[in-house]
């Protein structure tokens, strides 16, 4: 645990267990990573203690990623929200005016270096994001 005192907490939400585990494998050296496999499970976890960033899938049974992130935005506005999805129409999320529900989008399969860079940038951003600029 190299940066133990400042290590940020990430909550990875994905119904595909292998994806959640792969993300943990990738991120565990830089962040404190916790896993949840549905929106409701993730909300339960959020109620229990502070989290700095949620990284959520879009297409999940029950509550989808957009619904989940809306709740997060409402109840814990200081938590950064990143969506990681393979094949989805993001238009309804993007077209909402005002503060975006999602700070950044990433697509599956992700590039390891890109993903880490995005997470670090989001965690370093102090104010709620206002720029939903798409990532390439």
């Amino acid at each position, binding site marked *: 645990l190299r940066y133990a005192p400042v290590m940020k907490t990430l909550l990875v939400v994905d119904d*595909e267990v*292998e*994806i959640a*585990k*792969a*993300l943990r*494998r*990738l991120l565990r050296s830089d962040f404190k990573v916790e896993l949840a496999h549905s929106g409701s499970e993730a909300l339960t976890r959020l109620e229990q203690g502070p989290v700095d960033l949620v990284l959520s899938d879009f297409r999940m049974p029950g509550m989808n990623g957009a619904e989940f992130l809306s709740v997060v935005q409402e109840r814990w506005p200081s938590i950064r929200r990143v969506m990681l999805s*393979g*094949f*989805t*129409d*993001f*238009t*309804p999320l*993007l*077209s909402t005016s005002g503060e975006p529900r999602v700070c950044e*989008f990433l*697509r*599956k*399969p*992700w590039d*390891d270096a890109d993903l880490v860079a995005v997470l670090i940038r989001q965690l370093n951003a102090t104010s709620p994001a206002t720029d*939903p*600029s*798409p990532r*390439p």
Partner: protein
Amino acid sequence: LTNPVSWLMDRMIPWRGDPGASEQALKAELVCGVSGLFGLMGGAFALLMSFDTMANPSLALVCGVSAAVHATNLVLIRRREAVAAACLAVSIEMVVLMGITAGLMHGYRSYDSGWILCAPMLAIFLLGVRKGALCSALLAVQPLVFWYLEAAELFIPSGTTAAASAVGVIVSNCALLLLVLGVGAIYERAHAGRRSFLAGTIAKLEQAHRGLATAHQQLIASEKLSSLGLLAAGVAHEINNPMAFITSNVSALNRDFEKLGGDQELHREYGEEVLPATLDGIRRVNAIVGDLRRFAQGDPETFIEYDLNHEIEAAMRMAHGKVSERRATLQVDLGRLPPIRGLPRQIMQVVMNLVVNAAHASPAGAVIRIATWSSEDEVAIKVQDSGTGMSPATIARLFEPFFTTKPIGEGTGLGLAVVHGIVAAHSGRIEVESSPGVGSVFTVWLPVAAQCLAAPSHPLTHGVSAFH
């Protein structure tokens, strides 16, 4: 002859301008000739029967001249003008013959109207069956009326001078001829109206048929692309999720491999060959899945305002390697464009794919032309090459994923499928013109104020045509 002839032709010859005119003209002239011959025979018969009067030699002379004229026409007939000449000749004969007969034989008699027997045939041939029958009926009224008038002693009463009778008959025959011409003209006009109406209707139907056939083909093509799009989307989605963790896991394995112990030889083989090769394979699969996704839907991102010419310049820089490999030259003509909305990076990919394709199709040292211009609410990008061109069969399948004319291993066949998907997501359209050996022109039209579509209409309208 020219002016009255064309005047007559315009009014009396219904088949004017028809390809079969000369055959009909021949038939008409045959009728004229036969009628003249009958006249000649009648004259000769009258000459033999009543040798003592002066009437019959004159009648015979006129009939003889008429027969000679018709015979000459029959021999010389090459053009439809002969028909008009014959019509004119017969008409004059009728008038003059009747006048002379009436004058010299001391009064017109209804039974002298024997020439009317020839009239139905003539009229039918000249004016067509129905018009001819009507004219014949009108002509047949004449002897009936005259017969009645004679019986009542009203027309040419006894004691009328020969000259007066002649004038009376000539005037009445002239009136009748005018009547025939008038009826013919009216019929002709009505007929011409109906004919042009029919011709117009047929032309409209043919046009509609062509339009429907084209639309049908385009519909089939876009239906095909649409179902391929759904298939591609499904496949991409299903492959994407496992590929996500496969990619990440193999990358992690590759990264952490050094830390694992075990057989040195096996360690080296996996570290230097197996894992890098596996990662390369994974990258290729991901690239293809990404292309399939772009074909299926375009990438879901926000539309932003951007400068199209700027993206084209970037695309040309990206395609530079492929273009210079073929020793081709890019000739660029970028017009003044308004800023447009869309996904600049994807549009850049569209242009790049088109330019790379053009370079592949071009012979060494060829010129590839790229132009942009704007219309009212659209901008156009044209990429033109003078390369191998495409056959209609190739054009028909152009945008299908995995359709390629390149040798196996040289192209995935996804380049134009991606172009299609991206342009569809921008609500644009693609026009393709191509001809084998001449080259191809791709024109992409993009709306200036494109809206990001919730579900891109996959049946993209694309006009495909071939120039020859």
